[in-house]
């Protein structure tokens, strides 16, 4: 059986600096994996490589056993992988509803159709409304995105990612900038919408990490130094040194495990 996502000794350099130095990772279908690591370790870069924004310098990336490295983002997306961005990346002059609908059109097979009216595409419209409802954004359905609050934009960012029904979802710091209670609600939401799907997420908030992940991968200086169950990672000496090892992280993690 092939893995949902598999990285084989992936490397990426920008100019002379090598940012990803041979990362390997295997994610089973249906697993939730959190990627943690210090700032600049290359987490977002790794996401960029997987989602096709950059091509790796060397190594292989496989999605459900098929090689996808070097493909364009849209080609990767069409093979069933969607991602969110660390900084909200939306269609700011369109309404909330239109944003979500744009994200479902391709996956519903409408492609570049100019012989069909959007209003008649019941399945796409229903799906978009369904997503909005899940995100609790149905109230803002017809608001232009640029008028949304930060948290709403973050929510929509995730909405766009999951709307297309991709089976592999990549979330880059989905709860950044949110307050505690919102974060909680969000974890819940993410759990719901990614039920049965493969999820990779980058987070610095240990609360989220331990609340969400089945497995944790620790990325330091472009290498995966640990990949295991949360508790095992937490106990890992190297991880402690490189990343956690702080009162804050301990507290957050403890709170999450207690709550969960």
């Amino acid at each position, binding site marked *: 059986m092939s893995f949902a996502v598999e990285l084989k000794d992936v490397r990426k350099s920008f100019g002379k600096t090598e940012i990803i130095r041979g990362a390997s990772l295997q994610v089973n279908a249906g697993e939730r994996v959190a990627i943690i690591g210090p*700032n600049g370790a290359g987490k977002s870069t790794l996401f960029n490589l997987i989602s096709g924004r950059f091509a790796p310098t060397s190594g292989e990336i496989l999605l459900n056993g098929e090689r996808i490295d070097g493909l364009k983002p849209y080609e990767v997306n069409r093979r069933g992988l969607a991602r969110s961005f660390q900084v909200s990346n939306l269609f700011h002059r369109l309404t909330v509803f239109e944003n979500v609908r744009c994200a479902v059109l391709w996956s519903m097979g409408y492609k570049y159709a100019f012989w069909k009216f959007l209003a008649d595409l019941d399945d796409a419209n229903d799906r978009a409304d369904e997503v909005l409802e899940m995100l609790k954004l149905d109230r803002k359905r017809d608001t232009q995105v640029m008028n949304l609050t930060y948290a709403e934009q973050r929510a929509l960012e995730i909405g766009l990612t999951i709307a297309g029904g991709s089976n592999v979802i990549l979330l880059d710091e989905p709860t950044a900038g949110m307050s505690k209670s919102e974060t909680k609600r969000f974890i819940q939401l993410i759990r719901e919408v990614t039920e049965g799907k493969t999820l990779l997420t980058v987070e610095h908030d240990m609360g989220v990490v331990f609340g969400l992940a089945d497995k944790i991968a620790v990325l330091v200086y472009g290498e995966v130094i640990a990949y295991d169950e949360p508790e095992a990672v937490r106990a890992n000496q190297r991880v402690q040194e490189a990343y956690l090892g702080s009162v804050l992280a301990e507290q957050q993690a403890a709170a999450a495990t207690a709550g969960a």
Partner: protein
Amino acid sequence: MLHIENLHAFYGKSHVLHGVHMDVKPGEIVSLLGRNGSGRSTTVKTVMGLVDGQGSVKWKGEEILGHHAFDIAHRGIGYVPENRDIFPKLTVHQNLMLGQKKQGQSGRWSFDDMYQLFPRLKERQHTEAGVLSGGEQQMLTLCRTLMGDPDLIMIDEPTEGLAPKIVEQVAEYLNELKRRGVSVLLVEQKLTIALQISTRCYVMGHGRIVFEGTPDDLRTNAYIRKEWLEV
């Protein structure tokens, strides 16, 4: 040093601040807490002259409300925005250069100080800032403002998106600022940090100050924490 009285602020038509009072004294770390959307960032921006406000903001005894931002900056207030407004097309070093108010000016801080503080930045010195990782950008904004040698630095959620270890580093660093005689107005979400390092705290709710006191006061005041900070 900074004295805010009855400050009101508007975004176009919407009234966001409803009479904020606040003081920052020399050598203090003051934290401004509150839920999302309570108006903390707006307060700081209004002081900086980036949002129109009414009322009074006095800096070293002079009224600065209504002045241009660059003027306020020249008077010695530094501002670190919340959404990492780095200049994406400039290199890290150029970003820092723009922090200086006069070219080649030497104040409390030099480039080397900054690079020592965050070695990561030194490594990326000649990279376009736009491609930095989220955390690196956060470090850069902070350093950039310090290069302007402010007497008061207003920092909006500096620990956002930083790895836990770096967060603690930042906290230490703010203490270092204080030691060097710079006052800090810290807008925070992470209570742990804020309470740990600040001299005094304000809590905001719906555009008003709803609590004022020492960290210890806040720790013991369960009502405020529950009602206004959702902890």
